[in-house]
């Protein structure tokens, strides 16, 4: 697997920066590699600069959005990915912008399974010992845990479309490939599937082998 690009380096940043830093770095980077920029004079021709500007836009597309950035950080292993942590972060985020009643917000996230399913020790064991992850397996576990796809989407703070796409193994038409791993980890956490990172990898490898990730060589 090719090493994935560190988007922070594209903007000349480190992971531990604020959203505000990212905006400033983005603006500086655009100036630095603009056509008549002094700072990149004599090192890069117009063609090269265009390529770099594209990289900068791509990096900002992800890092400039706190949610996409969060998913990216998890996918890259920059932060420990747990759904709880993300929920907390979002709770904090929302709080600072719109100041909702914290309790109310929490209630929304406490989703009680809609479908009543009997305990199935054999399946439970299968989940615990899973060696690989497939879309069908995710769907089976979701149903066993008693969640609708909307509920799971709510738990993971993802769109229902994304959940369905991943369960049907036709991802990435809807979202940036880079989030794939992050999204899988979120789903695994929500469905109490162990060894999230390892299993997410098997899912991605399988899709790569089936050439379904053709548009996302970098993953």
């Amino acid at each position: 697997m090719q090493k994935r690009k560190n988007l922070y380096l594209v903007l000349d940043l480190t992971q531990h920066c604020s959203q505000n830093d990212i905006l400033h770095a983005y603006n500086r980077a655009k100036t630095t590699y603009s056509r008549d920029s002094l700072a990149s004079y004599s090192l890069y021709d117009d063609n090269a600069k265009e390529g770099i500007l594209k990289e900068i836009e791509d990096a900002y597309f992800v890092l400039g959005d706190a949610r996409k950035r969060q998913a990216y950080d998890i996918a890259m292993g920059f932060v420990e990915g747990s759904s709880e942590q993300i929920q907390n972060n979002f709770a904090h985020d929302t709080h600072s912008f719109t100041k909702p009643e914290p309790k109310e917000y929490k209630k929304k996230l406490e989703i009680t399974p809609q479908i009543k399913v009997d305990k199935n020790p054999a399946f439970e064991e299968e989940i615990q010992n899973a060696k690989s992850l497939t879309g069908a397996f995710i769907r089976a576990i979701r149903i066993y845990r008693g969640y609708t796809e909307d509920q799971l989407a709510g738990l993971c703070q993802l769109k229902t479309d994304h959940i369905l796409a991943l369960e049907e193994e036709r991802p990435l038409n809807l979202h940036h490939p880079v989030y794939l791993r992050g999204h899988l980890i979120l789903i695994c956490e929500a469905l109490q599937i162990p060894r999230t990172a390892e299993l997410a990898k098997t899912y991605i490898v399988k899709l790569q082998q089936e050439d379904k990730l053709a548009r996302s060589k970098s993953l």
Partner: protein
Amino acid sequence: MEGLDSIFSVSKEETLQKVQQQPYAKKDLRNWPRIWAVGGGKGGVGKSLISANFSWLLAQEGKRVLAIDLDLGGSNLHTCLGVNPPRYGLGDWIHRRTDNLFDLATPTAQPGLMMISGSSDPLSVTSQMEERKKDLFSELTNLPFDEIVLDLGAGSTALTIDFFNCADEGILSILPEPTSVENAYRFIRMAYYRKLLLCPELKNFMPVIEEGADTKNTLGVRSPSDLKEIISRLDPVAGEVFERELAKIKPNIVVNQVRTSQDIEIGKSICGVCRRYFGINARYAGYIDYENSVWKAVRMKRPAVAEFPRSILAARISRLTKALLGEESAIFPR
């Protein structure tokens, strides 16, 4: 050398005593001098301005400082420091008229600061300097100073670059104009390749490094940072050596003659470009405004920090000095 002795007379002894009695802060107590090299790849970008004022402020802080004019063809550091054109200089050491560099040091009006002038006969000096540059560095490290500041010449000749690379700290003065930026990058490129070429562990990769230095190379090296990939692939151990050598190139960038807030920003951009293109960590140490007090001070043959201590310029250079010493972070408006 008898002639030289008579020139030095009493003042040399006096200064030596003064220098050795300087109270200097404990934390700065080093048993070897730290060597700073001030370069820029171009003439007239403020190398002498920075060298003179930086040395002056270091001495004001109580350090024992020696400023050396290595601009062999265009030496004028003595003028910036308010010293009359000395009758002896580095040329006398290069031509072995004296073996002791300290003999050549002239006192300045600032206690604790001495200087060695450049050569007055530049014609024959440069080639012989090349032969003696190793000796020069070992001599320097034996001198009774805390800080030695080298005011480098213009251009990116191997000699100048090697001085820059051998120093403990490099300062690169850049003006916010295309010619200066272009020459500064040429300077960094030379520093980059000389550093690698002179590393014995990378000897086997010389052909690759040399080919990579050619902008029309066939290796697919578009920027020096690609070279790292290629060498690591050929030999992972050499790749590590390469990385280690690269980490040693960390110039302190100073943007001089700043007129607008965009000019100030250029320093940060340049550091970003250095990381992307060369894969090296340059540091933006500070900037200096374009100010009339500079040429006024030059006309009075005094460093601006001595002549106009309350000017914005003096404040900037003082800030720059603190940042270079790591006492204060370089803080810039966003």
